[in-house]
């Protein structure tokens, strides 16, 4: 193993136990379920407009809901089958949202023009930057690290801004999750071609793939394969949460800071997750829309864990049943990782474009402990990667002092949860900081629109 110079972001961060229990398990195809529930909003922005009616037959990869407005994303059928009905179904946020429910047929019949072979295609010269962005938009690709921001919007550089570096996020700093790790090992070349496509779309000469040092096999494989691709380098990073946060990753790799209230493009950077990059490859080179993703299903008590390629709209319950049902003593089911994932109240919630994992937690490991008074130990201040004072923002939020919360930069919280993680008094710092962040942001928006 060669020696690396490991980079990281300078301020704050924590080291939660990694628990990457599924890192060694190859990606498996998850079978087509008896029903799929496809939400028409699996992204940040406006819900897509439904194009199909009940009883209508749809093909795998067929457009079933069309993006409405610029910040929105197309939705495709992930199976071949008949539209059963259109109904309100819970999503990861805990709210009921409109979904197209489809009864699948056992065999896929793919929509026209989709290349379903495994053959690697590298002939990217045939596409112009505009064509690449158009194909990404048609395929309904969104940020697959969990943010689900429409990718074509991120690739459309605003007037007057210039991108000079593309960063591919292979950090996967959340404990337990391994879907990006497996993808880097198994779809190495595809990710690199996807990176070249993104570089072309953004008109940048340089791309850096950031991977944390706890994935030496991925670092080695990607570094070796990247030699064949012009302008792409792999940058190993020190293991530290939340390095996968966009701002922290840019800082670690380039030393630049996204200004408070600004976007990465303000400092010439665009970040894309490896899962998104793979989806871009499939969309452009294979004409394949985003209809499936890698989901890590894991938990300490689960015997059959895995990294599954799952059709979007598959119920979490179907996946849990497939691996043997909920283990005795399960107290919480988290969609995503333990630091930023969302706890779901029901297993009848479908896998969406942003569902990176399903984590089953024991009741005793996830139960919150008694909240004690703040002893001003400053641990939350020291671990905050954004330089905030979570203890202060919490007390301001408790009192509804939003002016002061804005002065304390609550709006700059990235919701990484490091403050709650370290608090010796078990104070719900993240709950309140998140509340303050959202409230302050909506006040700021209202002021701007006035």
């Amino acid at each position, binding site marked *: 193993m060669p020696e690396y110079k490991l980079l990281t972001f300078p*301020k704050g961060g924590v080291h*939660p*136990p990694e628990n990457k229990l599924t890192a060694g398990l190859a990606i498996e195809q998850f079978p087509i379920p008896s029903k799929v529930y496809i939400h028409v909003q699996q992204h940040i922005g406006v819900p897509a407009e439904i194009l199909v009616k009940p009883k209508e037959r749809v093909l795998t990869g067929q457009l079933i809901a069309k993006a409405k407005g610029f910040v929105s994303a197309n939705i495709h059928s992930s199976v071949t089958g008949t539209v059963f009905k259109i109904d309100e179904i819970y999503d990861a946020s*805990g709210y009921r949202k409109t979904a197209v429910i489809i009864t699948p047929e056992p065999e896929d019949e793919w929509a026209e023009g989709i290349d379903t072979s495994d053959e690697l295609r590298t002939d990217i010269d045939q596409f112009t930057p505009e064509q690449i962005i158009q194909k990404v938009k048609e395929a309904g690709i969104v940020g697959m690290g969990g943010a689900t921001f429409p990718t074509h919007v991120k690739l459309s550089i605003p007037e007057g801004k210039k991108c000079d570096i593309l960063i591919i996020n292979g950090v996967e700093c959340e*404990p337990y999750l391994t879907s990006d790790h497996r993808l880097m090992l198994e779809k190495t070349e595809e990710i690199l071609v996807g990176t070249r496509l993104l570089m072309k779309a953004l008109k940048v000469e340089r791309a850096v793939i950031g991977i944390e040092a706890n994935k030496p096999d991925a670092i080695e494989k990607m570094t070796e394969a990247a030699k064949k691709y012009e302008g792409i380098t792999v940058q190993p990073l020190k293991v530290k949460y939340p390095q996968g946060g966009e*701002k922290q990753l840019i800082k670690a790799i380039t030393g630049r*800071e*996204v*200004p*408070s209230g600004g976007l990465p493009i303000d400092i010439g950077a665009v970040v894309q997750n490896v899962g998104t990059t793979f989806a871009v490859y499939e969309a452009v080179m294979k004409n394949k829309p985003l209809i499936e993703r890698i989901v890590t299903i894991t938990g300490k008590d689960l015997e059959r864990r895995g990294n599954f390629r799952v059709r979007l709209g598959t119920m979490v319950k179907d996946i849990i049943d497939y691996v043997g049902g*909920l283990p005795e003593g*399960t*107290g*919480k*089911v*988290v969609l*995503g990782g*333990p*630091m*930023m*994932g969302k*706890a*779901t*109240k*029901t*297993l009848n919630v479908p896998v969406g474009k942003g569902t990176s994992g399903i*984590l089953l*937690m024991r009741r005793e*490991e*996830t*139960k*919150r*402990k008694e909240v*004690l*008074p*703040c*002893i*001003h130990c*400053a641990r939350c*201040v020291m671990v*905050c*990667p*954004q*330089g*905030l*004072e979570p203890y202060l923002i919490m007390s301001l939020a408790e009192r509804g002092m939003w002016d002061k919360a804005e002065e304390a*930069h609550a709006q*700059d919280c990235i*919701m990484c*949860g*490091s403050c709650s*993680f*370290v*608090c*010796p*008094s*078990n104070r719900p710092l*993240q*709950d309140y900081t*998140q509340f303050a962040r959202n409230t302050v942001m909506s006040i700021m928006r209202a002021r701007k629109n006035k």
Partner: protein
Amino acid sequence: MENKLLVSYSPHIHAQSASVQRIMLDVILALMPAVLFSFYLFGIGAIIVTVVAVASAVLWEWLIAKYLLKRKPQIWDLSAALTGLLLAMNVPSNLPIWMVLIGTLVAIGVGKMSFGGLGQNIFNPALVGRVFLLISFPVAMTSWPVPLKSRMSYLDAVTGATPLGIVKDGVRNGEKISDLMHQIPSHMQMFYGVMGGSLGEMAALLLILGGIYLIIRKVISWHIPVSIIGTVFLFGGLLWLINPEKYPDPLFQILTGGVMLGAIFMATDYVTSPMTPKGKLIFGVSIGLLIVIIREWGAYPEGVSFAILIMNAFVPLIDKYTKPRVFGTMKTKKQN
């Protein structure tokens, strides 16, 4: 099964080692070598004072929480036990039990619970108790048993002055420090801890070991202890260079009195010290300066308690002006 799933905001995990109780226990453990050494030096009196202080501090906390504040007592967070232990370290080993009881009552009742309990107080509770005793019972609080001399006696122990007291009185009477040196222990003796004084003024070596333990356990950072001890050393050293017959040497300054105990265990109290490294350094340097100023120009031979209490009052102000830099913001001062 399904309707029993817990739902909450992220994060869904919590650092295993992080608890108030564990932090307090670490500080108590770090103090243990020095506590045991004081038992060895001062014998039965030290044991009585320590046990009474710890037990009464916990009792006061329990009684006040339950009957005055009418809320669930939190004695198992060990903070009251630690306050009692620290107060014991700050008094002579022949202090009568009733004075110890008053000291812990003032420490817990006035210093801590009157502000609203753990985390709310402005001043270090143990020091509030100690200073109250010092002002109320100046004779009892400044007659220190001679170490190793009367380990089997408690109230009737043979007493003597502290090195700081000898120097202060000597200089005040116009004597030269070089003439006083034969009355005070050597630096090595002071480093190992054999001299007159309060329980915790002994054993610089053992206190430093405790401090290293706390830094390794990440309970405290180096900023406050190092800046206090460093400032006392440098400022004391500067005075010594100006006039070595009037001002004691810098090693004497840091090895005597409560500098080690104060810098490592008292000034680092989370509740009453600043949050950021920069704030901690300002706090520590200020305490160091005040210690030397009080020692050399004040009425008392020793100034550690007062120096820490004075700076405790400035903590909110220091915190306000030493906030961490928010990611993605430039320092506004530089733009001007």
